[in-house]
């Protein structure tokens, strides 16, 4: 997600990276590219302009011009400004501690309200609340059935009435039914409507007055263009929104709408939908988002996600083995299984710093997921002894393993070879600090580590000798080293 804006902003900022010192002119030129990138990301025109103006103002200061690494300063300012634009964080749904709380969802048609209602219900249930769904979308044919189906999947009760009724009454009855059922959070799924439709907006206001929800959340499609600000503003004026949920962020939409909607309404973005399944709702974090936008990756989300899914014991064991420099096929298999639990390869990769930019280069990774299943099969066909000491697997054992797992013997060979070089790297990594580990990971990925069957670097014969450097390049490097020395002395 946000890959588009990441690559174009990175492109725009590489302008700074190449040119040694920054002049006012080059700031302006570079920031023009930033503005264009924002517009292409569907950031509202005024918001983009304001953003660029602010950065220009901050960047054309003495400090930056005299700074030793202007691109870092600019990146820092852009990053900070993006955070300011999308923050501050507020994930609270402000639910009542006692009694019943009501959440009302509203938005344009097709923004994903009904699915989001299901996701919210699931999340609340996971937190120990007793959610209750009310099908107040009487407009779209079969919307009621959709919510009923979702409710049944989640085992969350749904209040529904005949589609020819009045949505306001449905909501009132729904709240009554929820109280009777002992629920403590009611989620109202209202019909999608245009903000320029006065009658339907009045209907929402009626629901608001009669039911008095604690939270009114606006559901916004991340793919929305320039009009996003108009609808968000109109809904906010009519209803005083408490929060925004961005949906469909699992696509490749640049999601400029997130930036502009927040800026224009001042209403916090609380959650984001990142998939069709009902568990794909995540809290929105401007810092992470900004860091993603700048291609910095998002380790924090991965860490949190991992905490939820990873089996702590087996992770600890694998880590211990790693630290001792012992990496067996067993820990390899465990790691693979854990990765599978987390989600597909691609969704993992985008959390690792520097990887999001590489996703494009890697291309279709769906094969890699299938490959994990096959690797699992191969390793499962080995004896415990073989898994512990893979170097003892000879030709006849290989044939047996291949037969057992239904693959070609060559594939077993390849796995063992990949494993061998990975183990070597892991051993190396065990002694490194976190930063170098991340770098190593990135190197592994760029060399085709995650592409099944690709050659691994540092794997015995495949290691290539460093090419002799040409004279010019050498000279340049030397010069730079001199410069750096001088700088260091200045400090």
């Amino acid at each position, binding site marked *: 997600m946000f890959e588009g804006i990441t690559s174009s902003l990175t492109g725009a900022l590489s302008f700074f990276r190449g040119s040694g010192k920054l002049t006012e002119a080059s700031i302006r030129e570079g920031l023009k590219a930033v503005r264009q990138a924002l517009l292409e990301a569907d950031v509202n025109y005024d918001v983009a302009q304001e953003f660029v103006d602010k950065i220009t103002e901050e960047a054309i200061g003495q400090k930056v011009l005299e700074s030793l690494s202007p691109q870092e300063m600019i990146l820092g300012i852009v990053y900070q400004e993006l955070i300011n634009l999308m923050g501050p964080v507020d994930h609270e749904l402000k639910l009542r501690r006692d009694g019943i709380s009501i959440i009302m969802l509203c938005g344009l048609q097709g923004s994903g309200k009904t699915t989001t209602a299901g996701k919210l219900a699931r999340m609340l249930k996971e937190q120990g609340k007793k959610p209750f769904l009310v099908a107040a979308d009487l407009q779209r044919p079969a919307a009621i059935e959709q919510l009923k189906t979702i409710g049944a999947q989640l085992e969350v009760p749904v209040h529904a009435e005949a589609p020819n009724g009045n949505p306001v009454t449905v909501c009132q009855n729904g709240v009554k039914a929820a109280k009777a059922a002992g629920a403590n959070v009611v989620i109202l799924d209202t019909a999608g409507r245009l903000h320029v439709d006065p009658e339907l907006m009045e209907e929402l206001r009626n629901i608001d007055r009669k039911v008095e929800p604690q939270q009114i959340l606006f559901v916004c499609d991340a793919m929305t263009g320039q009009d996003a600000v*108009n609808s968000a503003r109109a809904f906010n004026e009519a209803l005083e929104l408490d929060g925004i949920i961005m949906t469909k962020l699992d696509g490749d939409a640049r999601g400029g709408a997130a930036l502009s909607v927040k800026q224009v309404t001042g209403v916090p973005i609380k959650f984001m939908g990142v998939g069709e399944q009902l568990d794909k709702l995540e809290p929105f974090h401007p810092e992470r988002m900004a860091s993603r936008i700048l291609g910095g990756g998002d380790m924090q989300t991965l860490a949190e996600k991992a905490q939820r899914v990873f089996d702590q014991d087996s992770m600890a064991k694998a880590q211990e083995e790693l630290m001792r420099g012992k990496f067996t096929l067993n820990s390899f298999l465990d790691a693979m299984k854990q990765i599978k639990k987390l989600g597909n390869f691609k969704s993992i990769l985008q959390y690792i710093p520097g990887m999001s930019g590489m996703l494009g280069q890697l291309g279709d990774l769906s094969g890699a997921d299938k490959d994990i299943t096959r690797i699992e099969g191969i390793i499962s066909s080995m004896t415990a002894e073989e898994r512990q000491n893979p170097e003892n697997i000879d030709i006849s054992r290989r044939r047996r393993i291949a037969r057992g797992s239904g693959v070609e013997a060559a594939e077993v060979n390849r796995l063992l070879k990949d494993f061998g070089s990975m183990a070597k790297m892991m051993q190396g990594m065990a002694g490194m600090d976190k930063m170098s580990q991340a770098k190593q990971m990135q190197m592994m990925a760029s060399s085709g580590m995650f592409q099944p069957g690709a050659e691994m670097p540092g794997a015995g014969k495949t290691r290539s000798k460093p090419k002799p450097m040409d004279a010019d390049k050498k000279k340049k490097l030397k010069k730079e080293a001199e410069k750096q020395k001088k700088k260091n002395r200045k400090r």
Partner: protein
Amino acid sequence: MGWFDSLKRGISKTAQILNTDVRDLFKAGEILTEDKLVLYHKRLISTDMGVAAADALIVEIREKHLGRTVILDELWKTIHDKLESLLRGVDGEVWDPEQPLSPLNFSNVGPTVILVAGVNGVGKTTSIAKLANLLKKNGKKVVLAAGDTFRAAAVEQLTMWSQRIGVEIVTKPSQSDPAAVAHAGCTRTKELNADVLIVDTAGRLHTEVNLMNQLTKIRRVISSQIPDAPHETLLVLDAVTGQNGITQAQKFSEAAGCTGIILAKLDGTARGGIVIAIRQQMSLPVKYVGVGEQIDDLQLFNPTAFVDALLATGP
């Protein structure tokens, strides 16, 4: 109500008179300055037509009018002509408003198959209902295949529509293989000797490789049943969509070979300018526009009227 009226109503509910945009920005008799162009650029961007198209237009205006005295009609003509040519594309195809079915490619022998695809929530099912209604009103015998077996109650939604319009529908239980539904649809269409089969598909993000492959498979199954089918593959695009619409059009075309666009939900303040960027970059034409929530609110796309409405001042 004429089709132009409902389009106008659709695009701008505040119903401003055409080209006020030009009038309130550029004053007749004034010298056209670069500052004015910057302001106009902003308005163009707000239609979602994209930076490239907006830039192209500004370049054109700059060449012809910069530093000269503004003559409103001439300025308006420059803008209008440029946009219309962008929209018409290289082939300059225009459909006859008197023949609402003229954009569709019908099979010479046997039934015509129309496959409809798009991302989630763009309005596929509603657009299919409108299209089926239009075909039926023009004397075609229509069968629907409820291929969205993924989203809860999508089959029910299309079934309700089929009953309202009075056309046959082929369904399978939720979570069935959508290709099997398409297959059954083809069989039923041949049995009934119907004219047109419209195949619905589940909304999918174009970044989902597996789901895009599934679309290719559905296409393959259809063509194995009815040669040369599908004759039309229509991408439904939400008028509110921003620049992501371009990627949608590209990816769906790669997977399913799109032949045209239905621009849905052109009834808010969204301008649907993204279709200009799409036409400019990949020459995929808009065939129909959805301009309201009623079953009759599907209109043949008319570039001239679209440009007129696009440039009217929004709220």
